[in-house]
């Protein structure tokens, strides 16, 4: 019987210590894409991929059959768009990686999604709160990207925005239905929105990579989308008779690979099969 190599705790500690002393929390260089466009496409693709994977956890568990179908179909839209974006990211990188390679063979620190999409589903209200906030933002983002000077990105966005508009409307309906529903549904929706509100600022965060791309008309200036987002959210909350969530400071870090603990657990499930059986086909 083959034996596993013995892992010495002091070796592990030394390796961790070395990494932290250097101040590096980044993934190994060979798993990263240096090109600015590639990095941007990873951010967009990872947002969709991780939110899509999260939604699939509802499959078979939603409160009603129709809702189960809705969540699974929205997951499908998101994962479909992620495939297009990550395939393009791999093409830009030019090292032969496709969407599958990027989705299944990157470690947690190499993921560039925002923190909101990796948050656990919580209850149904919390899932819908997250989806409403993200889809409302994403409609504005994709409408802008449909006019990107990069024609490949523009056509993916033009196709995707038609799908995400549906998500925004469906989730807004649930904000109203639960917010203006029973005492309990209202409480839960308030809690769901409060939890996710701390992750909203990151959706509109710009850095040097995106500013440069936005100046060339490739990317969208996220910061410029905030006013429209705030107005759309306020209108739905008013209809839902819900208070505006307040949180003093947004949590950031996802775009640099500084994720919450939750993402690793999500990837463990998502990546298990292709990592255990590389190149498996059926």
């Amino acid at each position, binding site marked *: 019987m083959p034996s596993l190599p013995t892992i010495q705790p002091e070796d592990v500690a030394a390796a961790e210590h070395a990494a932290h002393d250097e101040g590096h929390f980044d993934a190994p260089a060979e798993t990263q894409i240096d090109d600015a466009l590639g990095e941007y496409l990873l951010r967009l693709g990872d947002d969709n991929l991780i939110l899509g994977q999260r939604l699939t956890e509802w499959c078979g568990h939603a409160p009603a059959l129709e809702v189960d179908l*809705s969540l699974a179909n929205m997951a499908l*839209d998101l994962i*479909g768009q992620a495939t297009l974006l990550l395939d393009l990211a791999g093409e830009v990188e030019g090292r032969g990686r496709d969407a599958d390679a990027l989705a299944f063979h990157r470690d947690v620190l190499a993921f560039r999604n925002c923190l909101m999409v990796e948050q656990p589903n919580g209850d149904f209200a919390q899932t819908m709160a997250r989806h409403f906030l993200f889809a409302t933002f994403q409609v504005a983002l994709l409408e802008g990207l449909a006019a990107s000077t990069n024609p490949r990105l523009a056509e993916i966005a033009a196709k995707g925005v*038609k799908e995400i508009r*549906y998500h925004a409307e469906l989730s807004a309906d649930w904000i109203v239905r639960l917010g203006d529903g029973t005492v309990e549904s209202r409480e839960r929706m308030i809690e769901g929105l409060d939890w996710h509100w701390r992750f909203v600022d990151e959706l509109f965060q710009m850095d040097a990579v995106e500013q440069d791309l936005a100046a060339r008309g490739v990317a969208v200036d996220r910061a410029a989308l905030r006013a429209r987002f705030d107005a759309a959210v306020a209108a739905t909350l008013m209809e839902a008779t819900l208070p505006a969530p307040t949180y003093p400071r947004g949590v950031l870090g996802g775009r640099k690979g500084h994720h919450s603990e939750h993402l690793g657990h999500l990837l463990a499930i998502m990546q298990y099969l292709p990592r255990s059986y590389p190149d498996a086909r059926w």
Partner: protein
Amino acid sequence: MSPSALAIDEAAILAALDDVPDPEIPAVSVTDMGIVRGVGGTPPALLITPTYSGCPATLVIEASIREALDAAGFAAVPIRTVLSPPWTTDWISERGRDRLRAYGIAPPPRGAATRSLRAVDEVRCPRCDSADTREISRFGSTPCKAQWQCRACLEPFDRFKCH
């Protein structure tokens, strides 16, 4: 086969695909659905487009089209997927709409893609033709369909989403 021969054969190629069913809705063909966009590009290829970004039938559709092309003697014609202009329900042909209705699926109205999703369209029951219908769920058995019910005959039915 030379490029000019391909161009000449476009009609024959499309005819060969006229019987290739959509795997999710076998009552309509891939040409009825507007999935097949004809021959074009350089080098010339059969252009196809997905209905939804995440449509899981995309790979099956491409495989079925490949098989039909090979069987009709067009093995040399490559297939290329294009995204723009994005597919909308307006790409579904009149024959496709008739076939959907006969199959029990309410087809989407024309020009749906340009209107708000919340626009109130008249939706007729594909069974009894009553306009007294209601939406049960925005999402149905496939990403492209919503669930509706007829108040007159009480039958639930699928409606092709305005998209």
